[in-house]
């Protein structure tokens, strides 16, 4: 028999999974509300535990090991605590300091590396030779990349009047963008489909007991929702969140 721990996970997991899938039907159901709120609740708790655990596991031991040498980390913890002052109306302005540090330092740290990975290396990789190439296909590929980059770039000018050749280039850039959207849509579809397959697999295989339990739970959910809609509409009304 399926033991309580895995059985519980299978049943509650099925309730959460198919409860949330009920949004597809467009029919409001208490199962969706329960699944949504159970997911939101546990998710909040997990984020808090995992972040706080980092503090106790890495930061507090570092301070305790040698408080004198690690006084800067103590200041960091004080700044972190000040963040929580945001919760109360009249200590809000004190929370402004950690918010400012987090914002300014966060942007500086990310931007200074992006100059290289996002701009310099990308332009360097687009500088491709158009002569002295091994095959004509290399020439076609290099030419397409260079021209596509130049045309799409014209699509990203916001302070120049779009007249004459710039307007033609802008239109070609727009067509290239739409072609790329088609390619990106298909890639995204591939990804999402992989998710559905991966997730459903754990509830369908092996057929017994997983598939069987899943089918039973889903039938119970559908029948109960149908009953609520048909026989007890006022109970359904009470069960749907505001």
């Amino acid at each position, binding site marked *: 028999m399926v033991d309580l*721990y895995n059985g519980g*996970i299978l049943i509650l*997991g099925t309730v*959460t999974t198919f409860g*949330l899938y009920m949004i*597809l039907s467009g029919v409001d159901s208490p199962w969706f509300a*329960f*699944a949504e709120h159970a*997911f939101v*609740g*546990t*998710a909040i*708790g997990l*984020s*808090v535990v995992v*972040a706080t*655990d980092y*503090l106790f596991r890495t*930061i507090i031991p570092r301070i305790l090991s040698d408080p004198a040498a690690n006084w800067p*980390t103590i200041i960091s*913890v004080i*700044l*972190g*605590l000040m963040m929580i002052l945001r*919760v109360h109306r009249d200590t809000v302005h*004190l929370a*402004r300091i950690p*918010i400012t*540090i*987090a914002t*300014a*330092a966060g*942007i*500086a*740290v990310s*931007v200074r590396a992006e100059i290289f990975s*996002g*701009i310099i290396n*990308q332009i360097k990789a*687009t500088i491709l030779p158009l002569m002295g190439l091994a095959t004509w296909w290399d020439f076609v590929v290099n030419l*397409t990349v260079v021209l*596509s*980059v130049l045309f799409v770039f014209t699509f*990203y000018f916001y302070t120049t009047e779009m007249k004459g050749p710039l307007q033609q280039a802008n239109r070609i850039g727009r*067509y290239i963008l*739409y*072609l*790329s*959207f*088609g*390619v990106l*849509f*298909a890639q995204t*579809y591939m990804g*999402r489909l992989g*998710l559905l397959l*991966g*997730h*459903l697999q754990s509830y369908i295989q092996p057929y017994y007991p997983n598939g069987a339990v899943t089918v039973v739970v889903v039938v119970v959910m559908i029948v109960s929702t149908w009953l609520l809609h048909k026989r007890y509409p006022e109970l359904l009304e009470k069960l749907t*969140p505001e």
Partner: protein
Amino acid sequence: MSILRRKEFFVVLIVLISVFLYIPYFFEVPQAMTNLENWFMDTIVIIAAFAVWVGFITATRREVVRIQRRRKGWFYAVVILVLSWAMVVIGLGIGKTNVIFEFLQWAFVIPGDATIYAILVFYLTSAGARAFRVNSLESALLTFGALFILLKQAPLGEVLAPWAGPVAIYLQDTIAMAATRVFSVSLAIGSVVLAIRLMLGQEMALVGLVRRVASREEE
């Protein structure tokens, strides 16, 4: 402590932080400055860890209000409160490898997250069926771009339509890659300019300061 309410204090703070983070990155600097840079990077990680509690406290406050006022479906608020506090009490109190803590993750968090991500293939199917109407040059390009990639991606496609492969690779590795590249380059330029404007004290809205302080003085 009225200085904490003045905008200039934060402008100076931002300029100092930016300078102390850009210079050590581009120039060889004495060890003291590198230590300060490392401290800033450590601090923003610690602040991020504490910021989680702000959300947790406000979420708890909101659910308690929902229960006190007996708003419709208030018992769902009880579900959120019970589960989030159970996770925190068990997770921090007993330990994050505790059986109940892991049970709640496997039962609610993981199926919830996986389901909603997976649900998108249904929405993409309906959006795709709706969007791929060939009624203009743009929608034709959109449709054929998607068609070739779908044929190449699916192993069945390689069997039934081998001709789609090379065309798809050409579209994917030259045109789509070029458009993606320009897209991320112009985005990176936007971020660089924003960071510089912040350093020059021009983006005070980032810390929600500008009008708020002004309007408070009017009161």
